């Protein structure tokens, strides 16, 4: 699905009733550990076939949210539906586990089994698993089938984890920081795999702190901080970064005071910086002024805040007051 189309079709709020239920709807989710409120008010939706990234600093509530969706933790309040079922309902647990796959943050595999045995063992738990050999090769472990798990490298173990998440042929896949510890090539490979899965109709919810990963993979990003949603949208438009606050920067010409420029600017990192919502006009005024005076604006660039800039700005400024500092984990 194209990101723009996704946006256009987005329901106004999570929990909007539809005939075809969303893969995930979360409304007003709350969860505390003792005095620490890990998740204070989280609402978002994931439509079938979408890749959504939960993004946020440590302690933002990403993993707690994910664990509630996975059925590992009970919520204190709010409504959650996963594939139309309530993960807090014990009676739905078996069906949900049959239809979802997950890759946890920590590598968890038995050391003395081979790669093939590990995958075949897990395959035996599902009603209609994918083929063992197929999943091993999808995860990039072809040729290592007979290797003992203990002799695999860290990255290979993570890929085995990924294979275990896929073997049940899930409709919905949770990936908790899936490429942590991957080298760049392996990471690209994992991204290609995730895109291929989505092309095959799998819905994917992943957590990451990696901006590049969110940018490369996600149709939409849900930015969490201190247990609440700060921003939500396609990565290109997150925090309105596609619409506002372009940044014009250049070296201040010798003999020109900051106040002498035709547009208001500030000094930042040794450069004059103009932050503006209408870069076309501002740039025209600036360059017109410079041409008239035969001044060279060296190092002139126009850019928009990167996803990382937006992330840092939002997580720094957008902290709800009285937010908990400590991560529950």
């Amino acid at each position: 699905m194209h990101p723009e189309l996704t946006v256009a079709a987005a329901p106004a709020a999570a929990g909007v009733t539809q005939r075809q239920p969303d893969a995930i709807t979360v409304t007003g989710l709350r969860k505390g550990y003792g005095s620490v409120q890990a998740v204070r008010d989280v609402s978002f939706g994931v439509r079938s076939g979408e890749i959504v990234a939960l993004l946020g600093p440590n302690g933002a509530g990403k993993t707690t949210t994910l664990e509630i969706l996975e059925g590992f933790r009970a919520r204190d309040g709010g409504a959650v539906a996963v594939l139309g079922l309530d993960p807090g309902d014990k009676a739905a647990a078996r069906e949900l586990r049959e239809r979802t796959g997950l890759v946890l943050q920590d590598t968890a595999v038995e050391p003395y089994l081979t790669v093939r045995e590990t995958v075949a063992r897990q395959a035996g738990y599902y009603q209609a698993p994918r083929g063992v050999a197929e999943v091993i090769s999808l995860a990039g472990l072809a040729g290592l089938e007979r290797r003992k798990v203990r002799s695999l490298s860290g990255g290979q173990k993570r890929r085995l984890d990924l294979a275990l998440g896929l073997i049940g042929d899930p409709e919905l896949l949770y990936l908790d920081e899936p490429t942590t510890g991957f080298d760049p090539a392996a990471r690209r490979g994992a991204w290609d795999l995730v895109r291929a899965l989505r092309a095959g109709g799998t819905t994917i919810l992943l957590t990451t702190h990696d901006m590049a990963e969110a940018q490369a993979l996600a149709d939409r990003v849900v930015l969490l901080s201190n247990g609440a949603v700060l921003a939500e949208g396609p990565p290109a438009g997150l925090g309105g970064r596609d619409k506002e606050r372009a940044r014009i920067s250049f070296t201040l010409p010798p003999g020109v005071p900051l106040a002498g420029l035709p547009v208001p600017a500030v000094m930042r990192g040794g450069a004059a910086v103009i932050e503006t919502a209408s870069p076309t006009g501002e740039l025209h005024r600036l360059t017109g002024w410079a041409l008239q005076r035969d001044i060279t604006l060296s190092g002139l660039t126009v850019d928009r805040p990167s996803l990382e800039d937006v992330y840092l700005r939002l997580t720094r400024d957008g902290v709800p007051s009285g937010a908990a500092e400590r991560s529950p984990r």
Partner: protein
Amino acid sequence: MTAATLAGPRPRRRGRLGLVIHQVRYEQLSFWRNPQSAIFTFVFPVVFVALMGALFGTVGRSAYFGGLSALQYYVPTIAALCVLGSCYGQLAVALAARRQNGILKRVRATPLPAWAYFAGLLAHCVLVSLADIALIVGVGRLYGVPFPSQWPAIALTLVLGAASFCALGVAVASVISNAEAAPAVAQLVLFPLLFLSGTYMPIHSELLSQVTGWLPVRPFNEALTGPLARHAGTDWRHLAVLAGWGVIGALVAVRRFRWDPRPE
């Protein structure tokens, strides 16, 4: 769902028995490939019985060993020790470790029912115990201990003992929160109890025997000594005490067992 899975007829899920056998198969593979578990479970008891045989093999029946020869005394107690090691000790340590490194959580995320996971573990432990006992009885035979004749009593005692000690092992793994502490805690409880229950040497204190008679180890020793060394039948009274401990262990395990390494 991919097109491929929708195209063919859906493979049927394994039956309950099939699922347990599937579990046992991989538990066994894991177990036998781990040199540590294989050595501790097999080499130690065999060496112990062989040593006792070398030391006391020529000494006949004596009042010190309750009217049995030394080897007749040690074959059942070491057999009991093996069942303890492969059920209680093994499970307490392995489950605490599996929880800590997230393997249990991963199992919990699959449709495998909890009962099938534990049934697989129990069957695995019974198999290991069986192999252990066969080995010990075999070594005992080399030193002149006659083969036992009461096989049904031995089988019943073994299965009940294994189940009870598995339940206690899971209970200990449920109560311990970190894997590093598991071996120490498991052994700390067990080791004095083994001594006091007469596993390593006969206990002639009436009071001590009374007390340990209500704890789990001694009843199991007694229940195995009857059919293994005295050609006696099933020792119902001691098995009842053992089963009581099994129930206690199972209750603690059911109430306290956690799949997730992090506390709620």
